[in-house]
């Protein structure tokens, strides 16, 4: 064993160094969810500056505090890890500008999005709240909650027997229910809790790229069970939020509805076309 280390000293050191570099890059980057900024690889300090001005100039910028000091952050990151790897630089650069990232502004002019690919929230609607930043305060509020798949009823005859079995005759999986919740809970938290209490089946997957849970099925009625455009959406006070249910902090008196769509939301009044709100 000793002879092994002496003989392969440099290989061992190299492997260890690579592992350390990768670990540092992974921990400090934390940017698996974010869009990489390709042009930032060469000169991170210069590219973050215009991004910061864009962010502060735009009206929808929701996190001006993070846009205020990107340049210093980027430069410090660069000096400490200048000798490592391009991935570290890219990670440092993308961490420095979480507010707005425009990867291909010249070619396609996409709508500006936040770190989790959410486009701007309409005037007067609540901004997304990141679930990991929320603290649950045991302060009782009440909201109204319901789950419905009434949109399926029109096409019930065309469905397979296994889907028909799970669709209730009136399309109501959970009638409107007044229930209490704690401060800081999201729509997803409430859904998960209600489904357990009411013994309703529910399956979800976490989608880190949108920082939210994606609801695959409620009451064994799954996405794609009623055609390629079908799945679960949620509506709060008559509005289909354009971000995930884990990021919607419930407020006192909110009316939450989980609705099954067969046509990407068009049949239940949501109008994003290809964008589902889960």
């Amino acid at each position, binding site marked *: 064993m000793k002879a092994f280390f002496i003989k392969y000293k440099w290989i061992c050191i190299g492997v260890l160094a690579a592992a350390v570099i990768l670990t540092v890059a992974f921990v400090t980057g934390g940017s698996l969810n974010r869009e990489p900024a390709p042009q930032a690889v060469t000169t991170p300090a210069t590219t973050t500056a215009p991004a910061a001005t864009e962010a502060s100039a735009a009206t929808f910028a929701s996190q001006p505090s993070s846009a205020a000091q990107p340049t210093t952050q980027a430069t410090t990151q660069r000096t400490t890890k200048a000798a490592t790897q391009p991935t570290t630089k890219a990670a440092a650069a993308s961490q420095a500008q979480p507010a707005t990232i425009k990867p291909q502004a010249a070619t396609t002019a996409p709508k500006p999005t936040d770190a989790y690919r959410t486009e701007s929230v309409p005037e007067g609607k609540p901004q997304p709240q990141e679930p990991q930043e929320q603290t649950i305060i045991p302060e009782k509020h009440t909201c109204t909650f319901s789950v419905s798949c009434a949109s399926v009823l029109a096409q019930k005859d065309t469905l397979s027997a296994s889907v028909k079995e799970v669709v209730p005759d009136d399309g109501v999986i959970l009638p409107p229910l007044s229930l209490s919740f704690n401060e800081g809970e999201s729509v997803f938290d409430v859904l998960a809790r209600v489904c357990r209490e009411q013994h309703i*089946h529910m399956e979800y997957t976490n989608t880190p790229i949108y920082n939210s849970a994606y609801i695959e099925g409620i009451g064994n009625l799954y996405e794609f069970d009623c055609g390629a455009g079908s799945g679960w959406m949620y509506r709060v006070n008559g509005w289909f939020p354009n971000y995930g249910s884990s990021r919607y902090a419930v407020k006192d008196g909110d009316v939450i509805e989980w609705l099954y769509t067969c046509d990407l939301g068009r049949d239940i009044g949501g109008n994003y076309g290809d964008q589902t709100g889960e």
Partner: protein
Amino acid sequence: MRDAFSDRHPLVNLAFFAAAIGFAMFLMQPVCLTVAAVCALLTALFYNGRRTTALLKFILPTAAVIILVNPLFNHRGATVLTYFPWGNPLTLESVLYGIASAVLIATVALWCMSLNRVMTTDKIVFLFGKIAPSLGLLLSMALRFIPRFAAQFKETMAAQQQVSQGAGKSFVGRIKAGVRVFSVMVSRSMENAVDTSDSMKSRGYGLKGRTAFSLFRFYAKDAVLLAVMLTEAAVLSVLLLGGKLPFRYYPSVKGAIGGVWAFIFYGIYAALLLTPLLLNIGEDVKWKRLRSKI
């Protein structure tokens, strides 16, 4: 392998395994799964003898992994047993489906074990040599590759150990020796393949108008056996497509277990799957009866 079933025409053998594996892959109904698993196990024991237990050491852990993994990733099902720590439900249906698919995969593996013993290289080349010469040769070479590779690997390993005494003591030394043997084996098997194809080419394999000698003859009893098996398979397919045996696991386990049609199906299915064993038993009975008369 020489027995009453393997001595039948290769086409009969192929038809049997095609039907057995085909039905085994598509039938998830629990009674059918049981019938197929039992028949496959009996047939594998008959053809492989003691080797079956060695192979079951691979098949059973695979089945266990499938049983464990399915409920972890599949949360469908109306009966929620409990919840995973991350919030998704553990359902009775996903557990049952995991067991069913594990049995299914074990059954197919067992059939393939018997297939390997019955369908020898000469039978494959005979069956495919005329229709698709290169495919037949490729199939026969591929099926022979792994056992031959293992045998030659042992040979090379022994030779290398004699040549380089003491090199394989340390961990790195052992890895080095293993890599060397493996690289030797890669070139050796390539050479084997090239040799085989050259040799076959020089004999005019696959040329037009070339005839092939074989000991296989299609007797009348082969025709009868083939007709019986095809009829059985056709009846089973008709019953299946006609929806006489509905069964589903999600969202709740539902389907027909009993009923006239179901029992007809089980009977025919078992008769089809037991063909090799029944042939052999029949042969034994005949032999004993003839001998006692002398």
